[in-house]
Structure formats: structure tokens, C-alpha cells
């Protein structure tokens, strides 16, 4: 998942050029045989948040300009280790307008870990 901040969201609206560069990166992932899924997400102005608290639910409309982290997209990879995931993530292109990128890598639960959970 790539994240920018809510305040920066206007600045990082994808350009054709950025999509091309990201496409080349995805191409590398495809050719390495590790990419299972990938998608970009539309901006938070089109998003909603559902908050569940104290027995009630509320719905908040985007944009989320106060947010520190806006998820802009995600990938699902099949790799051998966290170290390998890190190395692939290091090659991800960043948006030149923003000057930085952030990818958060989350491993899936596997069967044995689920079975080991306390009741």
C-alpha cells in the first residue's frame, strides 16, 4: 500500500507519466512471478469511513484532509520472506511531486498461526 497524507492528496493525483512509471514497476513484479493482485484506489474525496463505537455506527464522507496516511493502492505478493518483500518495495518508484513514498508490508496469517491462537 502506498500512502500519502490527506493534505497532500491533491498534489499526488496520478498523472499519465506516473501511471506509466508504476506500470513498469508492476511489469517487473509480474515478470518476477510474484504479483497476485494490484490496484490503485480512487482519492478519499470518493471514499467513506464507517465508525463503529459504543454500539452505534456513523458514516463519515471523504475527503479526509486531516488524515496522516491515505492508502493509495495495494499489491498482493507471493514472496519467500519479509526480506524479499522489503527488497521489492525498495524498488518502488515514488511520485516526484511528493518526494517520498511509503509502503507498508503486511504478511498474511497462515493456517498454523491461526491454529496456534488461544481459544
Amino acid at each position: 500500500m502506498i500512502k500519502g497524507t490527506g493534505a497532500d492528496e491533491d498534489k499526488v493525483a496520478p498523472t499519465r507519466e506516473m501511471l506509466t512509471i508504476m506500470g513498469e514497476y508492476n511489469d517487473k513484479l509480474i515478470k518476477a512471478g510474484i504479483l497476485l493482485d494490484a490496484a490503485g484506489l480512487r482519492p478519499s474525496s470518493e471514499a467513506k469511513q464507517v465508525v463503529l463505537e459504543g454500539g452505534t455506527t456513523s458514516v463519515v464522507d471523504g475527503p479526509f484532509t486531516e488524515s496522516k496516511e491515505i492508502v493509495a493502492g495495494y499489491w498482493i505478493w507471493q514472496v519467500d520472506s519479509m526480506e524479499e518483500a522489503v527488497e521489492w518495495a525498495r524498488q518502488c518508484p515514488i511520485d516526484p511531486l511528493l518526494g517520498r513514498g511509503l509502503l507498508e508490508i503486511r504478511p498474511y496469517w497462515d493456517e498454523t498461526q491461526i491454529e496456534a491462537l488461544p481459544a
Partner: protein
Amino acid sequence: MDARRTVEAVWRMHSARLVAALTRLVHDVGLAEDFAQDAYLAALEQWPREGVPDQPAGWLLTTARRRAIDMIRREKLQDQKYALLAADDGGGTGTDSELLSLVFVACHPVLSQESRAALTLRLVGGLSTEEIARAFLVPPATIGQRISRAKRTLAEAEVPFAVPDPDELPARLSAVLEVVYLIFTEGHSATSGDRWIRRDLAERAMRLGRMLAGLMPTEPEVYGLVALMELQASRFAARTGPGGHPVLLEDQDRGRWDRTLIAHGLGALSRARGLRKPLGPYTVQAAIAACHARAPRFADTDWTAILALYDALTQLAPSPVVRLNRVVAVLHVDGPQAALDAVDELRDDPRLGRYHLFGAVRGDLLLRLGRFAEAADELERAAGLAPTRQERTLLMERAAAATR
């Protein structure tokens, strides 16, 4: 995070293209691999001390090239081609075409099937001798020798480092896909011993398959193979019960099927079909697997579609195993008597004589027709032929239940 594991990760990511690029430079796949290995060992030694470089792949290539240049100078090779090596600015690691060439060389027909598998896992998969040995349940020395001999054979036969010509391509590609599927099935169900599933090996094969699909996007059978492997692998978690015993398709908890793999597999199958070229056996098998993947419950399975696909598969790849699997489809479409008639047509095929699933299927059909004593006999005989303890136990239990 451990520098050693990072070196291994980087190696796993880049070794194939590294070896491919070096092969272009030194014209010998065996030598190329040796230089790549040297670079790997150097990285293991230096990166923990000096930190991981910003461009790890470039570092490996530069280091390997230096060793290659040293060797060429030492051996005073005058060949024009080698003079180019010094002038080469290194560029990047291997291009797509070079990587493909490496795959085709590793799976060359001059090598035995097991040599191709070992060499592919080594050169393209970046696995060590120990890892390959563990995968195939043979001693490391055996794999070491197999790989050395394979490299010598390739050198002696002067196998060119190139993608095959269009007229040779179908047969050569078929050989490559066979190797990948062989690796997958080794991991999918052990052919000996007690372990039924070896996940890592199956994942390695899927990765190789996807890589090939990325490199050859106009070949439907490559996508077909990827789809087949992913759809089969999606059922791994559901295939073994708590005691380690195999769970049949009809009894599997479909909630435990991996939906991401199914989605990707169905996508790959779509691409295979979308290329509008004649469908090959892997694609048809994938289509059969897709019928199962799409059924929310066993009872929802579209057996008519599966039977039609088996009819097609029988034309494309008429093996007795395929015809046996077709019998199961006949059972669900036309009932047990029709299926028994179909299976009896196969009885004289000597290839099925030692195949435990033949007896398992026939025994099951006899059970459904109420011929219990014959069913028990058939299932017991099948148990005797079963390759794993778990399958043996399952068949013996069913034989016992038949005569209770």
C-alpha cells in the same frame, strides 16, 4: 533484520537474470553460474559488515563480471568475443530474452527430465544444492553430480544460448512447461514417503510459471499451466485433515480454499482463452479445475461441462490417467453403471496396472452399485499400491467399511 537473509532474498530475486547476463558474456552457462556464485559468497561476506548496497543486483553483476574478466585475462583468451567483455559497460542484469534463453537451455532435450528439473531450480530458481536435494528427497551429492553432469552435457553438445526458432518453439516450450509442472507436482503431492504436500516447492513452480507467462504473453499454454497450478494449490489447506490424512474433493471445506489464488488462476485461464489460439492440455485441465473452483458446494459442480472438457482432453492428451479421471465425470453425469462400463474399457491398459487410483475408482463404483465384496477386494488391492501411508490407510478403511 538479518543481512544474511537479505543477501539470500536479493539472490533469489536476481540470480536468474544475473546468470543470464553472465552467460551472454562468457558463453558458457556453467561458468556463468560459477561467477554468479562467487558474487553471492562475496555478498554474504561483505554486506553484513558494510551494509546492503543501494543497487544490490548491480553490485552482484559488477562483482561477478570482475571475476569473469580476471579469469579471461588469466587464461589469455584471444577470442574476439571475449575482448568485447572488457568494453561492455555492464548494463543491467539479463534482459527478458536472455532470461528466456536461460530457461530454454536449462530444459534442453539433450538433458534427462530430472537433470532439467535440477538445473532449472538451480539456474532459474536460485536454489542451492541442499535445497534442491531436500525438494526431491535425494542426497545433496546426487544433485551436485546431476548438475555438474548437466552443465558438461550442455557444453559438449554446444547448446546455443538462445530462444528456439519458431518451428522448434512448440516442442521446446512443451518441455519447459513439463519441467515446471513436474516441480509443482513434487510439491503438490509427494511421490514417496509420508508427507503429502510440500508447499514451498509448489510455490516455487508457480512463481516460475508466472515468470514465464510474463516473458511469453502470447503463449496460451503458459497461462494455462499457471492457472492449473494456482487452482490446484488453492485447495492445499483443505486437502489434509487434522490427522494429516487426505480429504477428498467432495468432503473438503471450501471455506478453506485460497480465494486469492483462485482469482488469479481464473484470471490466467481467461487470458489463455482470450488469446484465441488452439487450447492445449494444460489449459483444458485448468478449465476443469475452474469448474470445481466455481462451485460453492460439491453438489453445485457442473459435471456436464467437466465431462465435455475431459472429452476434449482425451483428444489432446490421451493418457490412461486422463481417461480414468473422465470416468469420475461420467459417474456424476450418467451414473455408476455407465462409469463402470467406461472404467472396464481401461482394464487392459498395462499402464494402469500399478496405478492405485484405478482400483480406488473402480472400487468406489462397485460400492455405489452395491457389489460390496468385489468393492472390498478392489480397494484392498489399491491400498497395496498406494504411494503414501495416508492414502493406504484411507483405502483400507474404505475396504473395511464395504464389508461391515
